[in-house]
């Protein structure tokens, strides 16, 4: 009886692993084909389309990085008269508010919204909602304080909104402090796999490109219709992605709208950040999985991709289960099928958590980016994956514990930015 149960568990989990591997193999092939036969990207561009844009920058204790972002905001090529930059100083205990105030004095388009300790500190979604209330633009873009965008990023992002069906848009984050250490290099590989291949393939195939919470934005009317950012969600970005699709709109991914980010530079910060992402993503999965399945506004391709996307943070836990079930079955010499399928389980160990990008996808992404050496680090993904198994298992347990204890999830579990990326910016 136990053997039969183990076999069912093993077959189910391995089938999921194979589904993800096939999905990402298709993504990789799609991007390779797209490189060979690029689409006419300017076909949707309308040079006369210049809507008013509000940029929201939620910031809590970001004195090391906020200055460079605001400096860049003053250098954007988008007409300043149509631009409104709102810094939401969310009860910062450092000089974030003062730095923002200095910039607002020198640049008319920059406004600062101070939230005191009573009103603020309730999470990024709450800060964004507060900024949204004060914003006036037809398009609302969001940037995290540690980001450093291209000067022409607003034009690149906004042009997609010409199409009325587009409800949200996402640009490409590129790691600024890649050369700092091994952690930042591995995060770079993750970003390459996730954006250069994964997001681009999803966009090309008409699936569900994901809004990542920064370097992107929304059509204001859509955001208002959806009720703004859900403050109960830890990953309000993933939540909004699905809300946008369930409301009948699309998210577009713009690969050439690059924005440079300061990646986490130590394993402790990586743990904290990924635990929050994993918890938030699982939260969104519980909220939207059934809605995606039942939705009449999503086609079958979008439903399959949406469900795989929603469950991606469960995969490390499931691969762990597959591993132990497989080992038990091999020990009990159960069947040849188990031996044959066993090969796929370690294949997943060379994948990235968050998008399940396998080693071949990351390698191709790095190559297409013109990288020559960073792909040599791909074998190290094995260790990152084992680390992520622990992260996702803890996140799942935390989520269950929070549900049982009815504990709020929506606090600022933010990453501390030390401004290590500043030295890589050459103005």
């Amino acid at each position, binding site marked *: 009886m136990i053997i039969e149960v183990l076999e069912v568990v093993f077959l189910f989990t391995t089938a999921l692993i194979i589904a993800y591997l096939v999905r990402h193999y298709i993504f*990789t*092939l799609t991007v*390779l*084909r797209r*490189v*060979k036969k690029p689409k006419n990207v300017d076909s949707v561009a309308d040079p006369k389309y210049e809507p008013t844009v509000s940029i929201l920058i939620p910031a809590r204790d970001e004195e090391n990085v906020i200055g460079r972002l605001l400096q860049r905001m003053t250098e954007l090529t988008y007409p300043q008269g149509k631009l409104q930059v709102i810094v939401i100083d969310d009860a910062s205990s450092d000089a974030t508010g003062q730095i923002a105030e200095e910039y607002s004095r020198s640049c008319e388009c920059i406004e600062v919204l101070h939230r005191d300790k009573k009103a603020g500190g309730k999470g990024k979604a709450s800060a964004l909602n507060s900024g949204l209330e004060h914003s006036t633009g037809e398009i609302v873009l969001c940037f995290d304080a540690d980001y450093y965008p291209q000067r022409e990023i607003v034009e690149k992002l906004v042009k997609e909104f010409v199409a009325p069906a587009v409800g949200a848009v996402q640009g490409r984050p590129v790691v600024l402090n890649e050369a700092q250490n091994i952690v930042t290099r591995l995060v770079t590989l993750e970003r390459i796999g996730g954006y250069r291949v994964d997001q681009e393939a999803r966009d090309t195939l008409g699936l569900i490109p994901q809004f990542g919470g920064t370097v992107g934005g929304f059509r204001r009317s859509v955001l208002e219709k959806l009720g703004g950012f859900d403050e109960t969600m830890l990953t309000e970005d993933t939540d909004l992605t699905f809300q946008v699709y369930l409301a009948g709109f699309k998210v577009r991914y713009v690969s050439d709208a690059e924005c440079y980010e300061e990646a986490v530079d130590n394993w402790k910060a990586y743990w904290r950040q990924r635990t929050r992402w994993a918890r938030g993503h699982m939260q969104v999965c519980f909220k939207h999985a059934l809605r995606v399945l039942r939705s009449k506004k999503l086609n079958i391709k979008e439903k399959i991709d949406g469900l795989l996307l929603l469950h991606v943070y469960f995969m490390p836990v499931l691969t762990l289960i597959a591993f132990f079930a*497989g*080992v038990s079955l*091999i*020990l009990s010499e159960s069947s040849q099928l188990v*031996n044959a399928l*066993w*090969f*796929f*389980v*370690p*294949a997943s*160990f*060379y994948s990235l958590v968050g998008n399940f990008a396998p*080693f*071949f996808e990351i*390698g*191709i992404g*790095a*190559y*297409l980016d*013109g*990288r*020559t*050496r960073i*792909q*040599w*680090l*791909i*074998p190290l*993904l*094995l260790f990152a994956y084992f680390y992520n198994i622990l992260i996702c298992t803890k996140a799942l347990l935390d989520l269950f514990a929070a549900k049982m204890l009815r504990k709020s999830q929506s606090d600022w579990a933010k990453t501390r930015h030390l401004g290590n990326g500043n030295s890589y910016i050459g103005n």
Partner: protein
Amino acid sequence: MKFESSCIVLAFFLEVIVLCLITSFRFINIESTVTLLIFNLLFFSLTFQLNGSLNRKLGMLALGNIIGLFWNFFLYFFATAGAMFFGEIFNVLYAVFYPLLNFMWIVSFWSLSLSVLPNPKSVHEEVKR
């Protein structure tokens, strides 16, 4: 003349690949042949679409097959010796860790081989020049 020599090199690489597959099946085990086939499938379907001459790609593929063959050869002898020394438990360990140990060479070789192919950006620059 140049065309002919290119064809000979191609035929040589193809022969090496086929020989590796036959050798693995005949002298090691079916699992090693399947491993090589999976590596060939991945390499052929993805890497062959990148920049670089066919000779270079096929050369890399042949080299990958040789490395894979030797890796599996050593693994097999290690497992056989281990089973004789430690008993049946070693065979079980071998069965459990065999795919993971094989992915070590596949992933490492894959990641290194991408650096050997011409970089798309430098190709683009060459075209511009």
